[in-house]
């Protein structure tokens, strides 16, 4: 039996995180000829997973960047709404030297940022009340992540952003404790939110990145040859993750429609962007106007 390498993710085996972890396992074991025995485990608490990588109680973790900003504050810039036009734009930036520079910052916190992954673009859903334009969301209680950037942006749009543990969200939506929530399609689909929410708006208001991290001590203990193996596996893992997100987004919207959800295309994303404008000034102060501009206007070379 090879040396055990534990990697955790926060979702079902058959999900955009599960398939990525399995691909990582498959490639590492194949390329290293079973010198390493990769063990994939599910760990719902993503904060705990990142902390464990830092401590070295597990070698790697993959998942959304939700809690990662609390470890590496620089990556919060990626949470700014309407930063990326589409998947090509987001992935292009993250795979370029801009993304690499951000991954470099993980080292100071005892981790290696291996590759950027993704949760997908986040979309808004609501229960009883239909939103036809951004002005309709004013005064609505929308569950957001405990993420300062997200909350600030929604506040600017007049929403009452309500951070809440994900485990409490289903009952809160059911009982109407909050009027809506926002998440990527794979999460909406896997969470069966169609039973709790009537409307889905394809707002794509913010891109939710993911990341595969490994412990710095573990990494430093690898030979150059083995490092290459893990890097290749990480790349294969991203591929599996992204193609699953695409598939979920395509078939997921249809599936949600089939299950009876009213899906609203949002042709006028600029209106939402406009609604969040007052927050943008703050973000420019916080992250640097030039940095945001570079990210927004990034084009493939």
């Amino acid at each position: 039996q090879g040396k055990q390498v534990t990697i955790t993710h926060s979702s079902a085996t058959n999900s955009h995180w599960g398939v990525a972890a399995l691909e990582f396992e498959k490639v590492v074991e194949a390329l290293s000829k079973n010198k390493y025995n990769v063990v994939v485990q599910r760990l719902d608490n993503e904060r705990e997973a990142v902390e464990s990588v830092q401590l070295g109680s597990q070698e790697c973790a993959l998942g959304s960047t939700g809690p990662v900003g609390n470890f590496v504050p620089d990556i919060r810039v990626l949470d700014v709404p309407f930063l990326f036009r589409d998947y090509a734009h987001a992935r292009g930036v993250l795979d370029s030297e801009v993304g690499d520079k951000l991954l470099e910052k993980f080292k100071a916190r005892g981790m290696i940022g291996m590759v950027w992954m993704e949760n997908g673009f986040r979309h808004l859903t609501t229960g009883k009340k239909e939103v036809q334009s951004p002005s309709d969301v004013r005064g609505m209680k929308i569950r957001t992540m405990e993420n300062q950037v997200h909350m600030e942006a929604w506040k600017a749009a007049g929403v009452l952003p309500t951070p809440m543990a994900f485990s409490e969200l289903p009952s809160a939506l059911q009982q109407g404790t909050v009027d809506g929530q926002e998440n990527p399609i794979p999460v909406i689909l896997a969470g069966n939110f169609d039973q709790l929410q009537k409307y889905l708006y394809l707002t794509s208001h913010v891109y939710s990145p993911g990341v595969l991290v490994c412990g710095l001590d573990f990494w430093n203990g690898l030979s150059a040859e083995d490092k290459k193996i893990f890097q290749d596996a990480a790349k294969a893992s991203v591929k599996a993750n992204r193609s699953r997100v695409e598939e979920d987004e395509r078939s997921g919207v249809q599936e949600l429609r089939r299950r009876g959800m009213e899906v609203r295309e949002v042709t006028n994303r600029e209106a939402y962007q406009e609604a969040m404008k007052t927050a943008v000034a703050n973000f420019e102060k916080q992250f640097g106007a030039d940095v945001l501009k570079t990210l927004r206007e990034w084009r493939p070379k």
Partner: protein
Amino acid sequence: MSGAMLATMMVMFAISIPIAVAIGLAAFVGLAGFTNLPLTVTAQQVFVALDRFPLAAIPFFILAGNLMDIGGLSRRLVELARAFVGGIQGGLAATCVVTCMIFAAISGSSVATTFAVGAVLIPALKRYGYPIGFAAALQATAAELGVIIPPSIPMILYGVATQTSIPELFIAGFAPGLLIAVALIATVLVWCRIKGWGKRDAEGRLGRRVAIRQAFWALLMPVIVLGGIYGGVTTPTEASVVAVVYALIVGLFLHRELTFADLLPVFRKSVVSSTVIMFIIATASLFSYLLNRQGIPDAAAAWLTSTFEGPGMYMLAVNFFLFLVGMFIETSASIIVLAPILQEAAQRVGIDPVHFGTVMVVNLALGMITPPFGVNLFAAAQVAGCSIDKMLKPLMIFIAVIITCLMIVAYVPALSLFLRDIVMR
């Protein structure tokens, strides 16, 4: 390693070392002796276990229970239940079950139900001549209804873990909850006849009308707490805070039985009771972390699903397995880890996911009263001031009753599903 951990724990239990300490040390032995994981994991798991918002329901409902006790709310609710069902021999024991049902509709946690109801009923049962071990065991068992009758924290966890509709799970819990309540009432009534307990139960009861009038503010509490949840004001966890504040207001200003001078002692007492439970949860978290790291629950579940085919056998095997798990592992942790695996296979053999969820919750609720690790036992022991071994004998009978009910719930799917099919389909 799991063997060594289990053996260490059992030896420490046997020599009267506190359960939380025994579990924590056994896990530490496993961690330090059999893995090369960093030992900082000990502190990390304690933190992670406590750093969960839904856990707040435990201290809050305990505090609410103590405030209701001193503020005279619980006494009035018990008087009310007694006025209606307490008139026969063993009526007070039956009252305990009925009051737990009312509370179950307020709280999503069995521990909280144990504290809230037990604070009044255990002393009352003692006063009327019931043995303390019986009273505590009955209270621990009846409080299971807290998670079977909605709202229910474990059902919410199951719904989230397996993507099953939470409202459907809630509705499916009603009939099994009623079944268990009726079975428990029947058991205690017969038991009291045989033993001759509770002959004076009918003495000193209030008239129904007086009881209702007196209990007005207390009766409004379920309305406010449940209304808060179903009216979309609070989450089930937040409902426990509302319960605290409501009990404070009624006790201080409406019943005027609670004084500001009582507050520090009540808070202190609630801190101790909460700590007893939550420190076990904290050290048990390291224990189950190590089991999970070895993939034991996964492997066992995988073996189950590949070995037993057909719904009948699968149901039996799963129930046996969960019974064993429930003896040692805390309910929420078991659900999060096992529900996705077991439910997937259940669906393959043709078991409805909502029905399966109900069975799983009823089974793991049973785990709350099976030694050595049963949170309801700890809670009831704490309230009763009674050691767990005094509870063991009566507990055996209650466990047998619940197992019988569990089998009915498992093999008569309609019991769980008929209400859902009427309301939701």
